């Protein structure tokens, strides 16, 4: 088997299509395509876009035969496999909406995963659902009491009869996919993205952020159920007729070096990952390994999805310099599923840049006052933020205060965006959609940042969102798990994240108001909650039991997670004074997360 080539005679078109079907029709005239690598890093499946299109059209006819109404949803357990890609494109030709579902499971997490699948399939009202043989038992269990037109493996679908007649296809206004923004089982939010919307974002990225050219080749291990994995590595390569190499997410997590080897062997030019992935990769690479690798073709290594800590990136660049990796390939970017994917990129070939600002001014007034190196050295409290670059040109931006007034340069506030890449809303959730999107098209991102000299700096993440290892975790989910224990009342829990003791990562904290005095029962409650969180989210959390009426509320009686977080940090510092260290960057924006 041979991987598809990186270049071909077909003229590069940067996603200037009106629908994804039109884009695939064009890509199918060339010889590029998609390539899948197994745990050993060997190529096990490869299709040109021409082959993929032909297969997708056959499958589209089989899906048509199921009699699902136009715009009906097809849930796809999004394991990194050629089947997912084929089903994703088949849905487009069949006029159906693919909905990628997470393919990830925690140790002992069988029941939690099945519940999550069931919740998402119900939320999107899917008419059909597919999972590969490794995952189909979970899917079958999840849909046992649902009435779907078809649920099963790719083989099940491939045995369906093909319907006759024209394929329905799509219009620019048709929904391209629904993207669930978090692993939330309790409060799923399905971002609805139309054909023209995702193509507008890809066009903007291809022309401006990444400046794609004929020789580009993509490489990724990112999960297909994440916006970056789906949009940047399935849809963008197709809509720009480039080849892409995939490695499974789990295979990457076990052997991060395989990602580097795959990029080296195929001379990838573009990849992307959250910062922790670069850290993980460099932890597992020895210096002599670097010599066997050739990363000299890699011109773009996007860094996104969580707050960026520059040190691991610098280490990565240092260790892989002998492999030809250039530090200027790192491309900090900012994006979110609600904007299809990307919002801003650092200009190409610029090196990572850090804004050193006065931490006290930021905490007190939200002002990003720059410090010169001498001041920074003199012990003034410094907050450091990474330059996330310039907005893609189709976006308008406003930084606003809590009451919606626009703020000036170097003043931190809530990032609002408007443009053709913004979602049409959350699936069948008018209330949540109204909260996020104004009538005149402005999206309230909930993220906190400031502008300086045309550059965007991100200082805080989505309102209350807990981000660990690049994954978004809603505090409501953690709180809900804690509340399901007897004796823990509805108003007794607050979840948030704090920097870990070494200041390098975030860790989740759940504060629980507890009336129990018996030490053994208290310890058992803590252990139970930690176990529940681990089996559902695969993360370690810290549980703090506090007396009743400890948790702070706003004047309207709502829980204030931001104040609960500050109180928790204060209690921790009183209990064990922290060793002196520079203020971690993410302590500064605290007041804005209120």
């Amino acid at each position, binding site marked *: 088997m041979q991987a598809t080539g990186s270049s071909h005679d077909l003229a590069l078109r940067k996603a200037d299509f009106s629908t994804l079907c039109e884009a695939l029709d064009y890509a199918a005239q060339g010889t590029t395509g998609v390539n899948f690598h197994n745990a050993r890093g060997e190529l096990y499946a490869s299709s040109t876009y021409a082959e993929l299109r032909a297969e997708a059209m056959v499958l589209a006819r089989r899906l048509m035969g199921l009699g699902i109404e136009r715009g009906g949803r097809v849930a796809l357990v999004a394991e990194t496999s050629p089947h997912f890609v084929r089903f994703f494109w088949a849905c487009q030709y069949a006029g159906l909406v693919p909905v990628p579902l997470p393919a990830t*499971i925690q*140790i*002992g997490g069988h029941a939690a995963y099945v519940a999550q699948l069931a919740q998402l399939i119900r939320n999107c009202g899917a008419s059909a659902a597919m999972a590969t043989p490794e995952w189909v038992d979970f899917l079958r269990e999840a849909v046992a009491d649902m009435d779907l037109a078809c649920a099963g493996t790719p083989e099940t679908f491939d045995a369906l009869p093909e319907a006759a007649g024209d394929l329905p296809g799509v219009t620019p206004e048709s929904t391209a996919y629904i993207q669930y923004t978090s692993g939330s089982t309790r409060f799923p939010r399905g971002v609805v993205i139309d054909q023209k919307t995702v193509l507008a974002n890809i066009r903007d990225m291809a022309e401006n952020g990444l400046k794609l050219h004929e020789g580009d080749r993509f490489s990724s291990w990112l999960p297909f159920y994440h916006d970056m994995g789906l949009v940047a590595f399935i849809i963008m390569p197709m809509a720009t007729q480039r080849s892409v190499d995939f490695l499974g997410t789990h295979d990457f997590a076990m052997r991060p070096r395989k990602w580097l080897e795959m990029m080296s062997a195929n001379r990838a030019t573009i990849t992307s990952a959250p910062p922790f992935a670069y850290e993980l990769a460099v932890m597992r690479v020895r210096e002599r390994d670097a010599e066997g690798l050739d990363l000299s073709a890699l011109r773009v290594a996007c860094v996104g999805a969580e707050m960026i800590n520059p040190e691991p990136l610098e280490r990565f660049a240092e260790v892989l310099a002998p492999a030809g990796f250039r530090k200027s390939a790192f491309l900090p970017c900012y994006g979110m599923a609600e904007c299809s994917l990307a919002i801003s990129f650092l200009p190409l070939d610029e090196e990572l840049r850090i804004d050193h600002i006065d931490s006290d001014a930021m905490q007190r007034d939200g002002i990003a006052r720059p410090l010169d190196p001498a001041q920074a050295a003199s012990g003034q409290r410094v907050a450091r933020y990474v330059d996330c670059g310039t907005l893609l040109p189709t976006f308008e931006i406003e930084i606003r205060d809590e009451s919606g007034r626009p703020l000036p340069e170097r003043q931190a506030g809530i990032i609002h965006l408007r443009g053709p890449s913004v979602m049409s809303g959350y699936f069948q959730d008018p209330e949540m959609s109204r909260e996020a999107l104004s009538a005149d098209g402005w999206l309230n991102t909930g993220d906190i940042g400031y502008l300086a000299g045309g550059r965007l700096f991100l200082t805080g993440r989505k309102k209350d969102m807990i981000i660990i290892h690049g994954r978004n975790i809603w505090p409501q989910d953690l709180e809900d798990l804690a509340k399901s224990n007897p004796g823990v009342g509805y108003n007794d829990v607050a979840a948030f994240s704090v920097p870990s003791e070494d200041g390098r990562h975030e860790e989740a904290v759940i504060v629980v108001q507890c009336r129990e005095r018996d030490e053994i029962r208290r310890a058992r409650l803590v252990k139970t909650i930690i176990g529940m969180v681990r089996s559902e989210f695969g993360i370690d959390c810290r549980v703090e039991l506090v007396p009743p009426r400890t948790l702070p509320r706003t004047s309207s009686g709502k829980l204030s997670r931001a104040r609960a977080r500050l109180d928790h940090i204060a209690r921790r510092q009183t209990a064990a004074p922290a060793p002196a260290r520079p203020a971690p960057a993410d302590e500064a924006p605290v007041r804005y997360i209120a």
Partner: protein
Amino acid sequence: MASENEIIETLYGFLARFPKAAGKLGPDTKLADDLSLDSVNLMELLVEIEDHYDIGLPLNMMADITTIRELAAKIAELVEERA
């Protein structure tokens, strides 16, 4: 062929690298609840197991494993299948 007990002993060796597992190892120790292994730790453990026994441990298999003994039984089964 490695017996289940031998595998359990080998697993203790692998788990010794995690300080949080110290002093807690027994056949019925729960990998997640008792040892607090997070997903990154778990990956490290799976790599050691795969390399040592030359088997593939698919992620979905971990859904129904809670204790060290259950993990050992699964490894024994896979080793036998391979043989």
